[in-house]
């Protein structure tokens, strides 16, 4: 019975989408009931797989229409749920369940909700199908459903500024990515005469031809578009911003995880390409650039959701860097960070949505002082901000530390200078993340409350509950990381690195050995070098010290603010000699000094993010060309 669960979960979501279309387009009660039942049952079905797959180590293989392989060729479509698939499936079901609960309150003021839930269920079902399928063409079909549903949901509030534009950009870049993927799939079919991923993996093992290298380059570019790594990230920033917040959360939590999953599947499982140092270098450099550009763009944003979007891109950079290392440690760190990214970025988007719901704006210049009006949202936001910045008791710290450790180990092992630089970049990016969240916290929740926002109310309960759950998960994942590692991360990393099991379970015992695929076993990752308690104590000490300094200097600061300083050379540097009352720096401009120092850099970067869709297409083509050249020149 248990082997039916994956396909039943996917089909349940699709059927619910049709039921919403048929019965629920006019009746809110029926619609919400269908959505919540489908989401809950699908979640339960996937959670029920934890015990057999994660703990007992089974791999569920399921042939659609009982088309078992004949003479070693997989003629039908197969579902194959191994630990890696299940890991991502768990992220997906958790995200969409929470997003569904959140939508009930958040979207209640919109029209066409029947279509909203249809598209939402389609998106959820397609991502769930994508991570569990074992057939590459089926994966492509699911990607397409995902792209169309994402575009439609991005443009859902089409009276909003820019929603249509964002949808169009997303569609153009996404379709280009899909076309690359399809071309790659076609070339792979020409090469392998099959479409099953396990069989392809066995056939392509240590047997790369120009055709399959081209296919690899194109598929990596295609999944790069879906995971929004840097030259492809441009439509994502717009889409996150223009979409309704419950959908932004789905994008951050599910859609770009689907891209990351595809990357891992293609690079590790199908092509076994991660033992080649050039591929590692290419992916790591893409990841590092993604990290850095994402966070620097985030520092200058004036819109809450757009800022979060750039942070999301930046955090995906960590994940890509980590999985590009090709080591068990890196993969564990990358998967843990992917999971944490789902949790804290979802939480942050939910708080942004709550702010939008309560105040009607996400512009940082118009917000302020909401901590007194929305204390619960504020606490949730702070937890999310601490997590994403990597402060100790929270989950972001653990996974970021694993990433640093993995990159550093790689630098030591290979003696390559680039990895050392990437380590430094990762640390700097973390600091800049914290800086930009200080800015957001200051601009939204502290500081002065504008007059228009005096009547702001706390968000309704249906929106607060998902936030509480996310916050709790953030804290728990940070505190009980050994359990997470033992039951989720280690099995997933192991299954990604050891393709023998994956092939054998699908095509019969001994198939992989016949084709000469090696069996790789990895030991569980040791959390070395650090102890969170020590770090926690250190941070507590620092906080107390900082608090003492602030309390001690408070009187003087108050005086300065009230009486004003006429002219003092001490402050001239900051306020260019103007009187203080005319030169206050708003919360959203907290880092104007940084911005001024990096004027040239920002001029180039803002010129590149021009908003013109053809420019973005040019970046996509250029990045694809770069990937192709690297693969062709260095992999032969």
């Amino acid at each position, binding site marked *: 019975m248990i082997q039916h669960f994956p396909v039943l979960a996917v089909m349940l979501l699709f059927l619910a989408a049709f039921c919403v279309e048929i019965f629920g387009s006019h009746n809110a009660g029926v619609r919400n009931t269908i959505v919540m039942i489908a989401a809950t049952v699908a979640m339960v079905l996937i959670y029920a797989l934890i015990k057999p797959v994660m703990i007992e180590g089974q791999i569920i293989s399921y042939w659609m229409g009982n088309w078992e392989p004949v003479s070693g060729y997989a003629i039908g479509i197969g579902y194959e749920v191994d630990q890696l698939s299940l890991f991502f499936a768990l992220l997906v079901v958790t995200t969409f369940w929470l997003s569904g609960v959140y939508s009930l309150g958040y979207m209640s003021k919109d029209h066409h909700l029947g279509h909203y839930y249809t598209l939402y269920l389609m998106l959820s079902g397609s991502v769930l199908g994508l991570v569990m399928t074992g057939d590459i063409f089926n994966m492509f079909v699911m990607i397409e459903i995902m792209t169309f549903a994402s575009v439609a949901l991005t443009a859902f509030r089409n009276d909003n500024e820019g929603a249509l534009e964002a949808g169009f950009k997303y569609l153009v870049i996404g379709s*280009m990515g899909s076309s690359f993927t399809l071309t790659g799939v*076609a070339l792979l079919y020409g090469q392998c005469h099959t479409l099953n991923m396990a069989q392809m993996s066995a056939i392509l093992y240590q047997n790369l031809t120009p055709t399959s290298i081209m296919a690899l380059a194109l598929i990596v570019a295609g999944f790069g578009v879906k995971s929004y790594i840097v030259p492809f990230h441009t439509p994502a920033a717009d889409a996150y911003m223009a979409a309704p917040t419950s959908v932004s959360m789905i994008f951050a939590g599910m859609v770009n995880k689907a891209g990351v999953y595809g990357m891992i599947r293609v690079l590790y499982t199908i092509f076994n390409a991660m033992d080649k140092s050039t591929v590692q270098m290419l992916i790591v450099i893409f990841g590092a650039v993604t990290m850095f550009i994402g966070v620097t763009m985030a520092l200058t944003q004036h819109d809450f959701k757009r800022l979060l979007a750039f942070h999301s891109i930046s955090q995906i950079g960590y994940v890509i860097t980590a999985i590009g290392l090709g080591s068990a440690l890196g993969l564990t760190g990358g998967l843990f960070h992917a999971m944490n990214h789902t949790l804290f970025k979802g939480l942050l988007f939910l708080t942004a949505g709550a702010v939008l719901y309560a105040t009607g704006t996400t512009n940082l210049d118009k917000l302020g002082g909401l901590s007194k009006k929305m204390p619960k949202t504020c606490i949730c936001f702070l937890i999310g901000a601490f997590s994403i910045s990597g402060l100790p008791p929270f989950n972001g710290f653990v996974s970021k530390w694993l990433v640093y450790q993995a990159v550093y180990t790689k630098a030591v092992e290979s003696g390559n200078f680039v990895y050392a630089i990437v380590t430094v970049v990762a640390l700097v990016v973390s600091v800049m993340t914290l800086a930009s969240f200080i800015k957001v916290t200051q601009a939204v929740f502290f500081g002065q409350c504008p007059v228009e926002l005096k009547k702001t109310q706390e968000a309704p309960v249906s929106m607060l509950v998902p936030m509480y759950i996310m916050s709790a998960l953030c804290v728990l994942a940070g505190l009980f990381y050994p359990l997470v590692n033992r039951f989720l991360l280690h099995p997933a990393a192991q299954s990604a690195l050891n393709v023998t099991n994956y092939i054998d379970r699908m095509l019969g015992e001994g198939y992989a050995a016949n084709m000469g695929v090696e069996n790789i076993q990895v030991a569980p990752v040791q959390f070395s070098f650090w102890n969170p308690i020590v770090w926690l104590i250190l941070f507590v000490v620092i906080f107390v010290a900082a608090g003492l300094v602030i309390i001690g200097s408070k009187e003087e600061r108050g005086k300065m603010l009230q009486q004003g300083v006429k002219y003092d050379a001490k402050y001239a540097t900051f306020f260019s000699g103007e009187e203080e009352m005319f030169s206050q720096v708003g919360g959203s401009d907290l880092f104007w000094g940084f911005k001024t120092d990096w004027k040239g850099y920002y001029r180039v970067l803002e010129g590149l993010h021009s908003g013109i*869709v053809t420019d973005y297409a040019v970046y996509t083509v250029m990045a694809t060309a770069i990937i192709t050249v690297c693969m062709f020149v260095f992999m032969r």
Partner: protein
Amino acid sequence: MILVNYIASVVLIVLGLYTVCTKKNLIKVVLGLGIVDYGVNMLIVSLGFNDGGTAPIYQMSDLLNGVAPGFFVDPVPQALTLTSIVIGACVDAMALSLVIMIYRKYKSINADDVRRLHG
């Protein structure tokens, strides 16, 4: 010749990408995406073709009369192409709807004017 088909499909894909990258008219961008799609379809169909093969369908009249229809070509790429064609149609439908609404909102379909979200 099949090689010509392969090369032509690659050229079509590149031409489509060129259209997407250089044309400023949003409708032309959508047409470029369509051209990329046709190139991919052509590649897939060419992959399954074998010189002298026929469509993989049993023609009852021929079979009953004993006329040998030769041999079949690969049916799998044809099924894949069917999916790909439907996807191309869907891309066109959605992209053109978006262009129509963008025209209503921005009063222009020049890509240089449609850039409210930038930076």
